Structure formats: C-alpha cells, structure tokens
C-alpha cells in the first residue's frame, strides 16, 4: 500500500501578470500514497490553489515533474489532460457545482458521458448515488436538495468513474457544522471501503485533524509535512 499515487518533483509555477512575474510554486515536491487521506493547508497566497489545480490536472506546472497514478502528466496536451481528469480525478468543490437544470442522476452521469461509456450508465450512476445515501433522491434537481445532499451528489459524481484520487476543495465550506461532519464521515468511510485516495484542501484545523497527514504549504513550498 505504500505505492505513491501522486509524485510531484520540484514543481514550479510562474504566472506573468503583465510585467510582474508571480512565483506561485517554487520547487515543491511531495508524495501521496495510494489509499492515504491527506489534508493540504496553508494561508491564502501560499500556492495552495495552484498546487491543487496541478494535482487535479486542471493546470500544468511551469517546470518539474508530476506523476499521477504512474503517468507523467506534466506535459500533456489539453485534451489528454481532460481524459486524465475524467479517468483519474474526482472533484468535489466548495460550491457543489452541480448543473441546476439536471436531476441528481444526470449530474452523476455526466463524467461517464465524457468517458464514452455507454453501457449501464444509469445503473452505475444510481449505484453511486446509493453509496452516498441518496438512493431515494435520484430524480431530484439540485434546488430540491439540501446543501449536504447536493454535496453528496457531487461526491457520487466524483466517484462514478472510479478515480485514483478524490480532490476535495473546502468540501464543507458551504455547509453547516452538522452536515459538514456527516459529509466528512461519508468521505472517510468511502476511503475505508473503497481505498480511494482522498486529498482535502481546507482552512479548517478540525477537518485537517480527521486526516492521516497534513501538508502545510507556504510561499510555494512544503513547509511542514506530518
């Protein structure tokens, strides 16, 4: 189990804002093992979001290597990155990001649409919704669901393609304490049952305390790792 699912070596990221160059990452290296639950913390401006975007294959590093699930992804083209995201990364966003017009079921089906999977799409989506405890809400639209339920739909959507990692960005940020706790225990149980690697970006020390390891980012490098 100590195989690294994420291996980042000497990542840098430079944004040029007009004349000024902003160094968001300055040679960051880290490893995350398969099945681990990791929290990434750090003040705003630390490069935390940039790191998260690179880990989620939404963005490419300016230099350095990033190996996700055994694949070198730092130099892939846009459409190749899209395929990697589709297959290997499950996203959970702070603001849920569900399609308002679509039912919970169609929302969960969406990643399968882009992976070209045809068979049993509905069945798979339904099972994913059942695994997050929403088996009785599959035809509800987001505005008919509570915040906690909406986020659970998002988790089902993240799970549905069996990704190597689930990347959650402040998953409880828009939830009240109680549904936040429920959501965290759902995420942790998914990790336990399925062995999915879980990476949570958060400000909240309480959330971080539920994880096995916390990585602190400051000024574009890993400051603390325990």
């Amino acid at each position: 189990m100590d195989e690294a699912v994420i291996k980042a070596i000497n990542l840098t990221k430079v944004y040029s804002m007009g004349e000024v160059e902003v160094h968001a990452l300055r040679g960051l290296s880290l490893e995350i093992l398969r099945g681990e639950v990791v929290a990434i913390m750090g003040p705003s401006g630390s490069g935390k979001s940039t790191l998260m975007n690179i880990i989620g294959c939404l963005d490419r590093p300016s230099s350095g290597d990033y190996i996700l699930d055994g694949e070198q992804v730092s130099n892939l083209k846009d459409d190749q990155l899209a395929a990697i995201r589709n297959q290997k990364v499950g996203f959970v966003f702070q603001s849920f990001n569900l399609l308002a017009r679509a039912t919970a079921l169609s929302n969960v089906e969406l990643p399968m649409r882009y992976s070209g999977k045809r068979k049993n799409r509905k069945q798979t989506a339904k099972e994913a919704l059942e695994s997050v405890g929403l088996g009785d809400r599959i035809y509800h639209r987001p505005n008919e669901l509570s915040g906690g339920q909406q986020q659970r739909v998002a988790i089902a959507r993240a799970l549905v393609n069996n990704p190597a990692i689930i990347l959650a960005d402040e998953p409880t940020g828009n939830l009240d304490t109680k549904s936040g706790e429920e959501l965290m225990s759902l995420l942790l149980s998914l990790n336990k049952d399925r062995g999915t690697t879980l990476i949570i970006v958060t400000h909240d020390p309480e959330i971080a305390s539920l994880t096995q390891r916390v990585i602190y980012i400051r000024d574009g490098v890993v400051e603390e790792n325990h």
Partner: protein
Amino acid sequence: MILQSIFEAIESLAANKMRSGLTIIGIVIGVAAVIAIISVGRGAENTITGSIQGIGTNLLFILRSGSDDVRNPEPLTLGDAEAIADQFQAPSVAGVAPLLTGSARVTSGGESTSTSVNGVTPAYQEVRNINLKEGIFINQEHILGRASVTVIGTEVADKLFGRKEGLEGETIRVEGQPYRIIGILEERGGSSFNNEDNQILVPLTTAQTRLLRRQTRDRVDMILAQAVTADVVVEANQEIAQILRTRHRTEIGADDFRILTQQDFLATAQTITGVLTIFLGGIAAISLLVGGIGIMNIMLVSVTERTREIGLRKALGARKVDILTQFLTESSLLSFLGGLIGIGLGATLSFIIERIAEASNAEIHPAIGMDTILLATLFSTAVGLFFGLYPANRAANLEPVEALRYE
C-alpha cells in the same frame, strides 16, 4: 451521443424560452421571406410559361436571318411556304401560314389609332388557333379576289368604335384605303408578351399588293408552321430546315433563316424569371444573415453566463470537441427551429400574396416545392452552425481553472 446532445440542447434552450424565441425571430423572418419570394417567383414563372404555351406548343416560327456570315441571304417566299406545306417533304408539318407583318394607321369616322397589320392566309386561323367573337375569318375567295376585308382585334374595335361587337359590315380605313370588317377576334387578354387584341388581319394577297409591299411579289416576312403534335416539333424543325437549305442553296451552318420554337421562348422567359427570383431571394437571404448574427450575439451571452458550467464540464473530463459540439448543437437547433417556423410563415405569406394577386386579377399560384423547403431548412441550420462557431469555439477554449473561478 448525438441524441443526447440534442436533448441537452433542447433542455438548455427551454430554460430560456423567451430569449430563445426572440433569438430565432430573425431566422424566422429571413426564411419566410426567402420561401415567399421563391414560391411567388415560381408561380409567376408558371403563369408566364402558361401564357407562352397558350400560343400553341407545336408552333414553329420561321424567320429570315440577317447574319453577316451568309452570302446573298435569300428572303422567305410563298414558294418556301408551299414547299414546307408539302406532305411528303415535311411529314411532321400539319399547317403552314405565311405572313406579312407591318403597322398602319387605322381610322374610322373621327377616330384614329396605330396598330399592327398582318397579311394572312386562311391557314392562319388553324395554325394560331384563333377564335372569332363574331363574323367569319379570311377565306380563299378573299385571297383570290384580293378583297378589301379585315378581321380586327377588340382593342382596335374599342378605340375606333367604342364597342367590341356588332361591327360586322362596318368600314375602316387602313392607310386611307377602305376595308370592310368581316369578323372580330376573340379577346386573348394582355398578359401575353405580344398584345394580340391590338391588331388587324387582312388577306395576304391584299397586303402584298396594297398595304405591305415588298421588293418582290412573293416575298413574306414570316412563315408559321404547325407540327403534327408537340412531340414532333424537333423533327418538323429539321424537315423545314432541310427544305429551306435545299431551296436557298445554303450549306449547313450558314443558314439564311432562323426557326424558333416555343421552347426557345420558354427558355428565355424562364431565364428572366429565374434571374429575378434569385435576385430577390438573395436580398431576402440578407435578413437570414442578420438573423444569424442575432444567434451569434445570444450564444456569446450564453457562453459568458455559463462559464462556470463550462469549467465544471471540463473538470469532469469534457474535451474541447465536447464543449464545441454542445454549443454548436444549441445554435443550429435554434436556427433549425427558426427555419421550420419560417417555412410555415413563408407558406402563409405566399398564400396571402396569391389572394392579393387574385383580387387584382393577376393569376399567380405560388409553388412551394419540396426542394425549397429542404433548402431553407438546410440553409438556416447552416447559418446557425456558422454563426455558432465563434461562440462555441470561445467556450471550448476557456481555461478550466479560470472558468471554474468565474463568478
């Protein structure tokens, strides 16, 4: 996959019904205008074609040709007409009518008018399918006796006498010479390219000697020939050409005559109406263009509004082509719907035009063909596709990170 795209597009268009409706109005108007113009144009073409066909589908006009390439061109003569009338030389020809044409001042009492004068033989009635309102047509006796008799058109009658019937036996003066009216032509209406109500007919021999004198006695201006049936017009044409070539001793390709069939007139008329229709249709197509720009505008707004959605779809693994397809489907579906409604509106418009034309005594039956409908549908969809390209491309090229962060 395609079905799913279409379904999703319908869903997202339905989410903004008002906006979608307003957007397609441009396309609706454009398509309706194109459909109405093309169908009315075709209707007009049919009317004109019909009136040309009214001349007689099996008629051939033989004229002298003044081409410079021909040495010593010979005029058409009565002898030519007789040769063409020969059953054995020209079995496909049923009737032949030599003709002298000109114009003259016609007077009666104090009234006077200028009209065309045709010197004709009795065969003319059959060949041109002429009906008389009253009286008789010019007969063989009139020809032999070079009689001063005339058959007049209703317009001439109306101008000289103020009435269109009861004129048998009256006398008119043509170029000062007195002619007795023996018959009045039935009205043919002014819709034909040649107003046949404004003419008078006199015996050919009378015209030769007194009204329309030519250099030689037997010369004629035109010979009308009637093919046995409409199917053998081509054969008749060849037989006549062969006879005239032999008689005029001309080589092939250096004819000193010209044979026009109704087909030639039809072709000309169809070219003219076709050009008109295309011209007007082109103008109407401009409004389609404007409609297309409207679609582009709304699609751009829609892309901006849905930036986050696009970001999310990309995060979930949508490739560029997926986003492109999504927005292109929406824009072409919009214009496709606009096209459908436009076809309906266009059909209604041309129906109204038909009624208006009817009310003002013009006969136009708009013809909406399947090809027009298909073309309009395809074209409007293509407009949506084309004007959707830019917004869709913009959506497809959004950076996922920025799109997700967009508020």
